[in-house]
């Protein structure tokens, strides 16, 4: 077997398992946990376009999840527009707002950009918590929005079972992974990486670093908002504190940092490592010590940063390389 065949076989097996999984799992609770795992992996992949490739650290991406959820839901509730169309509208709104925030802030480096995005995200959350009507749009303040049940309906993006949601988020995740893979190998990816690491050198070669970062921000915000609509349709209810809070923003960044910033597989590996931990500590420990899962997150983050500062993807891919070599070179032969 050659190396390429091995990569392809494993990819096919992985895809087959992912697509077949709902047949094996009866419990809607477990399916929901996996759906959320994919949801987080998707969000982190979208985040990665800015946080990984462009080399800045956005810490307020929950805002764009919120923009997606609010846009599609308001359009559905008040104008009866299908959430599928609302999803795209939310993406466009989020991209526009991302560009407006990014224009002045993306020039900042390190902690300054992170702090600005936190400040913006919290500011917007407080605003939405205190606004009942935004012009003609009903946001319903801190009570949030409830989407009425319509029964199984593809047009209304509502399903009585978990399977359709599972396949939708799985396909979204596959598409976003393919997209980040494509970007990382395109000219845009190289210019982003160059501008992220050595902005001055890139600029002195004539690369317009600011524009590429802005483009990455727009793409990232657009994709993030699509997941917001998905979340709204999955839960059928959301409120500002739960959706726009710093918990979600930080968890996205945690997953990226632990999985590996700027890698394609990092968000998936990070979500695989952290999501089950999050769910089970919450199920089994939250009665005794609420918030304990965040403490555990913090500990893991410290350990990973100490021993694997590039995230878990780096050691895992080294192990895979070695295994792949052992399999592809027939026994005894020296390579």
């Amino acid at each position, binding site marked *: 077997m050659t190396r390429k065949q091995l990569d392809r076989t494993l990819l096919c097996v992985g895809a087959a398992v992912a697509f077949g999984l709902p047949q094996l799992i009866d419990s809607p609770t477990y399916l929901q946990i996996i759906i959320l795992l994919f949801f987080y992996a998707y969000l982190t992949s979208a985040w990665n376009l800015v946080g990984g490739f462009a080399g800045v650290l956005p810490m307020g991406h929950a805002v764009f999840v919120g923009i997606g959820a609010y846009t599609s839901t308001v359009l559905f509730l008040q104008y009866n527009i299908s959430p599928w169309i609302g999803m795209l509208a939310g993406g466009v709104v989020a991209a526009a707002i991302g560009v407006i925030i990014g224009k002045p802030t993306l020039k900042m480096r390190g902690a300054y950009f992170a702090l600005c995005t936190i400040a913006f995200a919290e500011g917007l959350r407080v605003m939405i918590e205190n606004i009942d009507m935004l012009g003609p749009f009903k946001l319903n303040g801190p009570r949030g929005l409830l989407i009425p049940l319509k029964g199984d309906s593809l047009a209304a993006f509502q399903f009585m079972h978990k399977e359709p949601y599972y396949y939708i988020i799985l396909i979204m995740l596959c598409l976003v992974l393919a997209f980040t893979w494509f970007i990382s190998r395109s000219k845009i990816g190289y*210019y982003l990486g*160059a501008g992220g*690491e050595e902005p*001055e*050198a890139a600029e*002195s*070669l*004539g690369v317009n670093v600011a524009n590429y970062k802005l483009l990455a921000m727009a793409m990232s915000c657009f994709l993030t908002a699509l997941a917001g609509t998905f979340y709204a349709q999955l839960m059928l209810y959301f409120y500002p504190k739960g959706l726009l809070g710093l918990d979600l923003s930080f968890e996205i960044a945690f997953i990226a940092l632990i999985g590996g910033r700027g890698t394609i597989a990092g968000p998936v590996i990070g979500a695989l490592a952290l999501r089950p931990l999050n769910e089970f500590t919450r199920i089994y420990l939250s009665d005794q010590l609420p918030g304990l899962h965040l403490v555990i997150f913090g500990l893991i983050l410290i350990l990973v940063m100490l021993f694997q500062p590039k995230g878990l993807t780096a050691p895992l891919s080294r192990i895979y390389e070695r295994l792949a070599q052992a399999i592809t070179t027939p026994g005894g032969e020296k390579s």
Partner: protein
Amino acid sequence: MAYLEIENVNVSYGDVQVVNDLSLTVNEGEVVSIIGGNGAGKTTLLKTISGLLTASSGTIKFKGEEIQNRPPEVIVERGLVHVPEGRRLFSLMTVADNLDIGAYNTRAYGQRNHTILGVYDLFPRLAERREQLAMTLSGGEQQMVAIGRGMMALPGLLMLDEPSLGLAPILVLSIFETLRKIADMGTTVLLVEQDVNHSLRLSDRGYVLEHGRVALEGPAKELMDNPHIKEAYLGM
């Protein structure tokens, strides 16, 4: 008409003025050195020419057109390329990818596969290491990549900020020899250096910067015989 003409340029960081009423010219085909100690304003001057910093007053003309306060991408497009201090490579990319990014501007992009052969001719070492990550190269090789990356932009005028920084003497010599070759192939070179001896030997003319002003200027040979320079920079 001078190729690069700088007149009465002032640059400051906030309240601190770093470059004072500075004028200098570079003619086509020349190699010109700017020498001076730490804090003399050499790097600031180069960054201002390439558009990374803006001058508070004065004019900078390149090929007869004013370029002061234009963004760096416009200035690179016209053929003025800056190789920044300290190499600044994209460490997780291969040597070939680093070089490719040099050919970002529209003028150079279409010809990049041809230009890269010229760069490999100049630095055969880089051809051997083209698939290696930039961070795994030695200091001298990294400097070769930095200069090669600048050449990929097809410069009319190549500005280099301390290419000898942190290199072993033998490597410094070979870097300067390569710069001479680049100049002989028709690229004008503006060199900022602390290694006065080597840079003046390779140059046609030189400027001595002290406290953001031109303290001395003249043909490189005369500067090397100047008693002030001998004492202050060459330690003789």
